[in-house]
Every structure is written in C-alpha cells, then in structure tokens.
C-alpha cells in the first residue's frame, strides 16, 4: 500500500472508506471529491466529505482517525503528510429532497470507495446551482455528465420534483454546448 503522502484523492478516499468500514461505520463519499474522481481530476478538490448513513459517535470517530494519523482541526480532520482533508457534513445523505438510495462501490486498486453514483453526483452539484445559483457547481455537473456519459434527461424527473425546471434547462443547454464543442 502507498504511503498517505503519495496517495492521490481517489486512493486516499479508498483508504479512508475501507478504514471506516473496518471500524463498522457506514459512510458515503459526497461533494467535490466525487467530481474529482469521476472526471480524473479535471476539477481538483481537497475536501473528502464523508456523510454518515447511520448515527455516529464523533468522539469515537476522532479516536479512530487518530490511529491513522488524522487529527481534528476545527470541523476538519487533517494529516501532516497530505493536503487532502476529511469532513463529516451533517447527515442524512441526500440530493435535495431525495435520499441517497444507491451507493457506488468504486474500486481503486485494492481499495473500495463507497461514494455517490455519477448520477447522484450530478444531482449533488446541481443542488448547489439550483439553490445558491453556484455556477462552478453547474460546470462540475456538466463535467461529470460528459465524462461518465450521462445524459441530462437522466436527472430531469428529479429536477422537476425539486421544482427547478428552468435551471434544469440551463444545465441541458450548457451540457449540449460543451458536449459539441
């Protein structure tokens, strides 16, 4: 196994995901790091957002992560040998009003990252665009859609349920422009 200082974001996510699983936690990787992984770092994130799928004891997590060299720094867990850091956003794992139902078991070498599916990753980014008008998040959603070969129609029904048909149309239009560029 590589040393932490030599791991890229996907390798570190796999290492942490397996470690947390070995300690009987159930987490799913969410946020910008999923974009990094699905787009082969076209978008670079340093933040590993693990969202708990069941109730967690923060004191126990702190002690468990200390065993592999991560220490708490504000709301983040940092390691002296890497710039990547871990965060545990508030549960439950969801994309807008929809709970996360499917976990993608993404293989990276010997490790497995439990993470959002590419489709949920697009929805996750679109939430930031829908609710906060975050344009970088829109671009990230488009990157994942193109790199993972997912058509905008795959998230159309979800966007309608979120009441965001106008912003979905913007996503679809910009996706087509980028896809055909």
């Amino acid at each position: 196994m590589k040393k932490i200082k030599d791991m890229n974001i996907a390798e570190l996510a796999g290492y942490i995901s397996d470690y947390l699983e070995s300690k009987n936690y159930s987490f799913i990787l969410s946020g910008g790091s999923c974009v990094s992984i699905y787009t082969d770092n076209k978008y670079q994130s340093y933040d590993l957002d693990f969202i708990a799928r069941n109730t967690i004891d923060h004191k126990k997590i702190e002690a468990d992560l200390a065993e592999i060299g991560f220490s708490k720094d504000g709301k983040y867990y940092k390691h002296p040998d890497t710039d990547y850091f871990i965060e545990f956003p508030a549960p439950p794992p969801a994309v807008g009003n929809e709970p996360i139902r499917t976990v993608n078991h993404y293989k990276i070498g010997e490790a497995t990252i439990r993470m959002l599916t590419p489709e949920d990753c697009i929805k996750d980014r679109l939430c930031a665009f829908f609710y906060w008008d975050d344009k970088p998040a829109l671009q990230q959603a488009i990157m994942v859609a193109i790199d993972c070969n997912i058509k905008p129609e795959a998230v159309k029904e979800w966007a309608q349920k979120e009441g965001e048909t106008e912003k979905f149309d913007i996503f679809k239009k910009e996706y087509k422009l980028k896809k055909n560029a």
Partner: protein
Amino acid sequence: MLEGIFSNSIKEKILFFILQNGPSYPNEISKILYLTLFNVQKHLKQSEETGVLVSHLKGKVRLYEFNKRYPFNRELNALLQKAFSFLPDKEKEMYYVRRRPRKPGKEL
C-alpha cells in the same frame, strides 16, 4: 411553541427570526430578540453543524439562512411557519425587521 422539539426556546426564537427575515447576522438577532450574543452564536453554530442553517460572509458580516439543501428544509419551514402563526400578534411584531433599502443619512 416548539421547545419540545428544539429543547429550548432560544433556538426556536432564532429560527423564527430567520424564517421571517431571511439571511440574518448574529448581532442583529441578539439585539432584536434581547438574547446574549454568546447564546445566539452558540445556537447558530449548532444549527449549522446539523445542516439546518448555512452561513455566508458578506463583507465582514456572517449571514445565516436556512439550508435549502437540508432534506427536511421544506417540512421544517412549514412546521415553523405554522408554529409562528400561533403566536400572539404582539409577539409576532417583535420578529419583523425592516429589510427595504434606506438611503445613507436619511432620518429614521
């Protein structure tokens, strides 16, 4: 009104305030609701950690608002709205803050 759910009335007041006025900053909430700044900041921080609220810096001021990505946001807002409607009118008025523009130097 919702102390049973929020475990105390301070958090309820803070959430009512943000519900009525939108993005709000701790000092404003503290002054208008006659709460200590420490208490307001403590409850805002807790609500942010649990995903109910989010905050953004605007200039030097940190504004707190409901987290639209919180999966129970709609339901929580509906519950708060209903609870707020049960308050006596006099108490409701306490939460209303001027949000329309005011020219610099204009008399109150």
